């Protein structure tokens, strides 16, 4: 993939040997080797850093993260131990103008998806109006008809969302995926920024970059705003499956920054349809649970009876309106990949607007004509299982073997509703450290949106990078790394 490339000829230092790849959009450099206009000042700051110094700083960054224990666990790793999330020093940079567009588009999308959830768990007008086939909703693993009629406080279902984007050109992004159940990664955003500020204070002094540290406070405020103001001593807790969960670092991080107890299921009990925390002295009423446990495991009386992670009776308390669950139950239907192709229609229906950010063309194997197209073009499409995440269940047609394609064909025929397909969208690439070289590697971007009484978008996000040459898989669980994301402020 890097056989056609060009040298960067305006940079004389760090980037002097960087070979961009003109089959992808390079985040730093244009096709002719020039730096993108809006990024000149920033890139030159990096270019001036002596190469040896920069590589030492890169090592230092990993060491800082290691010392601070910025880790994640990989379930499939036999050792199952904490791993440091690999971090690359070259930030992704988004201009003020681009960000304004992204921000508006994200708010529009999240409000539409929230309205969709409020509708499908109530009057289901969108189904009656045939905007989306009922079977797509009803057959979604994330849809639970038992939740119909339960309205969460403030009608907010999606308190926290992470929407994955890819850049397809200057000022041009596409939505890749919605994460509306238990989106993770924001703690790495904040920690990555701390590392960057430690290593590049001189750049931060020169370039206005929007801050990300206040995310936990915004989240806390948003959640508080949904509780009846008459309530006294409002208690938020963060519910974790425990220290061996892959995202445990993030759970502890957010609990500390939000100044709320980090609890496991054994710390909570439901009495008279109210949730209480087993504190040292007494049972303390809990008003808000920021839960990092999937629906399926959260209440053995309502969902999976074999769950050892849940709190019996929690859904009763939720139904009675005595506890806010963030995110609400049943969100999975809205980030189901089978529903994804219909989201632009949802935006038109609920927001009465055209989508501000387009999404990746998607073929639903559920529809006969689209299924036929997919089966005829398996080797040129990306096939995804609708209820998987983390990069699992993804077959990239052009890279798959004949055996893999044959297997996926059989699976699609057996269960068409379970699959979607997308053309191979070229992700943008960004200079990334690979051993002792600087090479272009593909990246995506996950910004985070908080929805309380009003929406707020974190001015930054997690840029994930595929560290392996030619790879499209950016997920941490499969060897991806992360970068800081700089949203340029007003000069």
């Amino acid at each position, binding site marked *: 993939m890097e056989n056609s490339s060009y040298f960067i000829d305006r940079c004389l230092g760090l980037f002097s040997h960087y070979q961009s790849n003109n089959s992808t959009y390079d985040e730093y450099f244009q096709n002719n080797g020039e730096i993108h206009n809006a990024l000149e000042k920033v890139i030159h700051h990096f270019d001036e850093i002596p190469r040896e110094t920069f590589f030492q700083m890169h090592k230092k960054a990993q060491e800082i993260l290691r010392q601070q*224990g910025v880790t994640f666990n990989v379930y499939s790793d036999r050792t199952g131990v904490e791993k440091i999330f690999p971090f690359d020093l070259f930030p992704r940079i988004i201009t003020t103008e681009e960000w304004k567009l992204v921000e508006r588009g994200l708010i529009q999308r999240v409000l539409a998806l929230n309205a969709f959830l409020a509708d499908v768990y109530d009057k289901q007008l969108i189904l009656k109006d045939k905007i989306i086939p009922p079977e797509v909703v009803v057959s979604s693993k994330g849809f639970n008809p038992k939740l119909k009629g339960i309205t969460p406080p403030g009608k907010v279902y999606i308190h926290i969302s992470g929407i994955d984007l890819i850049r397809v050109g200057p000022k041009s992004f596409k939505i890749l995926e919605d994460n509306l159940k238990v989106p993770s990664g924001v703690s790495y955003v904040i920690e990555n920024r701390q590392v960057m500020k430690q290593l590049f204070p001189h750049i931060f002094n020169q370039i206005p970059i929007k801050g990300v540290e206040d995310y936990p406070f915004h989240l806390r405020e948003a959640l508080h705003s949904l509780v009846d103001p008459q309530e006294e001593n409002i208690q938020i807790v963060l519910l974790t499956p425990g220290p061996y969960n892959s995202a445990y670092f993030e759970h502890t991080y957010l609990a500390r920054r939000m100044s709320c*107890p*980090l609890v496991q299921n054994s*710390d909570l009990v439901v009495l008279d349809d109210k949730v209480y*925390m*087993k504190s*040292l002295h007494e*049972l303390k009423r809990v008003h808000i649970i920021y839960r990092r446990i999937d629906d399926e495991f959260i209440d053995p009386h309502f969902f999976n009876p074999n769950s050892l992670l849940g709190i019996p009776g929690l859904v009763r308390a939720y139904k009675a309106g005595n506890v806010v669950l963030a995110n609400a139950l049943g969100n999975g239907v809205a980030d189901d990949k089978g529903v994804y192709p219909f989201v632009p229609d949802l935006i038109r229906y609920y927001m009465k607007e055209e989508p501000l950010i387009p999404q990746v063309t998607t073929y639903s194997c559920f529809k006969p004509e689209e299924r036929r197209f997919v089966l005829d073009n398996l080797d040129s499409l990306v096939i995804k299982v609708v209820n998987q995440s983390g990069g699992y269940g993804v077959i990239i047609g052009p890279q798959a073997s004949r055996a893999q394609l044959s297997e996926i064909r059989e699976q699609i025929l057996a269960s068409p509703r379970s699959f979607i397909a997308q053309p191979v969208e070229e992700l943008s690439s960004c200079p990334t450290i690979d051993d002792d070289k600087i090479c272009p590697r593909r990246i995506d971007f996950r910004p985070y949106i908080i929805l309380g009484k009003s929406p707020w978008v974190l001015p930054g996000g997690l840029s994930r990078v595929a560290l392996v040459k030619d790879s499209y898989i950016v997920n941490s669980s499969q060897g991806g790394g992360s970068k800081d994301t700089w949203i340029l402020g007003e000069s």
Partner: protein
Amino acid sequence: MTARSAEQCYWMFRYLERAESTARMLSVTYLQSLEDRYFLRKVKHPLLFILDEEMNFSEKYPHQLEEKDFVEAFLVWQDENPSSLFNTIKHLREDARQVREILHINMWKTINDLYLWINEANVKQIYMNNRIEFYRTILEYCQLIKGSFYDFIYRDEYFHLMELGLLMERANQTLLILGELIKNWIGGGSNITNSEKIEYFSYLLGCCASTDNYLKRSDNFEFESIVSFFLQEDRSPFSVLFCLKGALKKIDNILRQGTHLQATDVTEQIEHVINEIQYTSCQGGLQKEIESQNARIIKELENINRLICEEFFHLNYLIKG
């Protein structure tokens, strides 16, 4: 706070104190062993007794009692020894990880640094080539963690429980050191020269970082004086009385933060032990009585620990409704 995290905080600080005191005792013993010392000729491995590993070691390695380096490695590295320095640091870090959201970032970072350091590939080399440096590094880490604790932690139940764990562990360690002294004194240690006595007593005082404090209080090294110092000197942060009085204050602070927690049994038990210590006579000729009292207090401390766990962490208010 949850009762679960409260318990973890308590044990985390017990492990912290244990790590520091173990490193200190090993360091002091090592330094002493570099010279010809009376008590090391007579008492081969004082730390095996002090760290309560004598039986464990003799059963597993009956033929290695003469090998000083092997014994030391057992106390530092052995996975089969749950109280080894390595395992203690591992438990400290694991407890800290489970209550990480409560700890100040500096505190967590230092605990994590210590854990990462002792797991580094070259650390065993440091241990082999420069024992003093090895122990000093651990001591510095432990002291940094405590510094962060005192500087930053919010003075709520978590703080008081952590300190309670530290005091209980320290009291226990001091009693074990005292037990070592009494055992050897009764075993013929009283028939030694003055120089040998000074050598031995200063070693034991060094094991609990108390040599300077002892000399503020006393001009000589006498058995009665040392025993009284370890047990009754409530200005010394390592004396049993100091630790138990501190523990009582901590319990009081915790109880005042809420209304439904009662800790009657543990409070009574600590007060009883304090009384016993305060009225102990350390006069010469009463070594046997002191020995049996020391053993009794060690047992009572185990009971106090059990009561702390029962009365604080087992949610009795739920049972009582």
